[in-house]
């Protein structure tokens, strides 16, 4: 399995505050990698910087060895797709329209893509004509994931997908993420919910106030006493 996505030495500052300091990460083909850390550790900053939404002080991102473009819309076209923090579905548009806008970069959208999303999340199919604003939080998260899949990404990036959702819904969504990965989509996930993220991923990086403090196999991290104490709540 070759390296698909490589982030080298990324730093981001907001004024005097250094939100991310020289963070490097790799994601292999068909791999699931998690970045965990507490609130304010720089996880979302990292995601936004990869997607071109936040300017980096330094750092490079490569996809298949080629440098990513700078503008978000070009990054999406080159094969990355973000499920943003807080879902950010287009509330005034219907479920169907949200999925259609997700396919915007494709010159010829394939109806089978939408069928696939509906097979992953049947509830979206039942509610296809409803405005996205009328969906529950869990359904909006499903829609945000489905929307991101519509551009046929090679890497699906998820920023805090468990945020504000009931545990049972989180379990469902993470199960679908595994199915999505089995279809060949590599996944980079950023989570405060360390347990779920470590259970899902193969490898993980631990961020603390913008610095990498630990990385390794997710199974090993789950058993790591320090990680247990700091992030797993016992």
């Amino acid at each position, binding site marked *: 399995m070759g390296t698909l996505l490589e982030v080298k030495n990324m730093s981001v500052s907001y004024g005097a505050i250094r939100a991310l300091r020289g963070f490097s990460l790799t994601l292999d083909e068909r791999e699931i990698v998690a970045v965990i850390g507490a609130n304010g550790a720089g996880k979302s900053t990292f995601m936004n910087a990869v997607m071109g*939404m936040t300017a980096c002080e330094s750092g490079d991102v490569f996809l298949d060895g080629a440098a990513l473009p700078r*503008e978000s*819309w070009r990054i*999406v*076209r080159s094969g990355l797709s973000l499920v943003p923090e807080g879902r950010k579905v*287009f509330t005034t548009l219907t479920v169907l*329209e949200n999925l259609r806008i*997700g396919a915007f970069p494709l010159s010829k959208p394939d109806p089978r893509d939408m069928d696939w999303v509906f097979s992953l999340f049947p509830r979206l199919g039942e509610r296809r004509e409803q405005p996205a604003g009328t969906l529950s939080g869990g359904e909006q998260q499903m829609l945000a994931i489905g*929307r991101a899949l519509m551009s046929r990404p090679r890497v699906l990036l998820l920023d805090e997908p468990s945020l504000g959702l009931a545990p049972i819904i989180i379990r469902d969504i993470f199960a679908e993420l595994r199915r999505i990965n089995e279809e060949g989509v590599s996944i980079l996930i950023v989570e405060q919910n360390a347990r779920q993220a470590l259970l899902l991923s193969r490898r993980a990086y631990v961020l603390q106030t913008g610095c990498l403090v630990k990385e390794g196999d997710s199974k090993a991290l789950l058993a790591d006493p320090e990680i247990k104490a700091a992030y797993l709540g016992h």
Partner: protein
Amino acid sequence: MDFNFSTLFQQVINGLSLGSVYALIAVGYSLVYSILSFSNFAHGGFLVVGGYICYGLLTGFDVAFGREVLLSVPSMGGIWLAGLGAMAGAGAVAVLTERLAYKPIREHTSMTLYLLIASMGVSIVIENIFVILVGGRFRALPQGTFPAATFDLGGGVTVNASDLLSLGFAVFFLGGLQFFLMRTRWGLAIRAAACDLRTAGLMGVNVSRLIGIVFFVAGILAAVGGVFLSARYTLYPQLGGITTKAFVAAVIGGLGSLPGAVVGSLLLGLAEMLTAGFVSSQMRDLVVFSMLVIMLLIKPAGFFGKQISDKI
């Protein structure tokens, strides 16, 4: 003035016709507001650009250069070509305004107040470019530009062909806009961007191009409004000031909402013409701005508006 039904009917027709022209302009205000959350006061300038291009094409640009520099178009399809030229020109000026005046600000700050102030500046610039180029005189579109016929509907009610035309064209262009927004790929992108501009960029939409398209469309609609307003009131560099009323209509309907802009415009046109017919023509503006004040007091978001944030 005594109440009678023929006056009522007459003024309702006039009101709808005026309101439909307001709607073309108000929709442009709302479209830009829905994407960038600021009221683009240069919009009146786009209208004036459209009006003068139309006038210039119809008269062979003798105003600007003292003689006919090119074959005037009446012999070549007249108002149709002049109208198309006006739309293309105003659309281009709108895009240029965005690129030169707004984009540099957008890229540096998310404070929309700066955009608002810049738009006021652009409006002054455009107005004075025309004062310098063609002078401040009032100009009427050449006779015969629009059919002068009036239709007698009986009972003393008459309709001008040009009023019917402006109503018809407004419906046509608003319908076209609706089709563009609801049935095309970029239309969908614009609706998504109206909901959340930043996230639209994450969908692979080139936001910069999207904003350009929005300004081009707003410019086109302003030009159509400009042509009909210059037919109604004559053309002068400050004609753009009339868009204040379209802006009021957009606020009453709910800034950012396109149905709101249309409903607000028709209401305003009707209120203006009914006041002129039954009270006094001088009271028109008083009624218009009273409606605005009352609306802001009882329903600040307007009829169809969603957020009640600062609408400036």
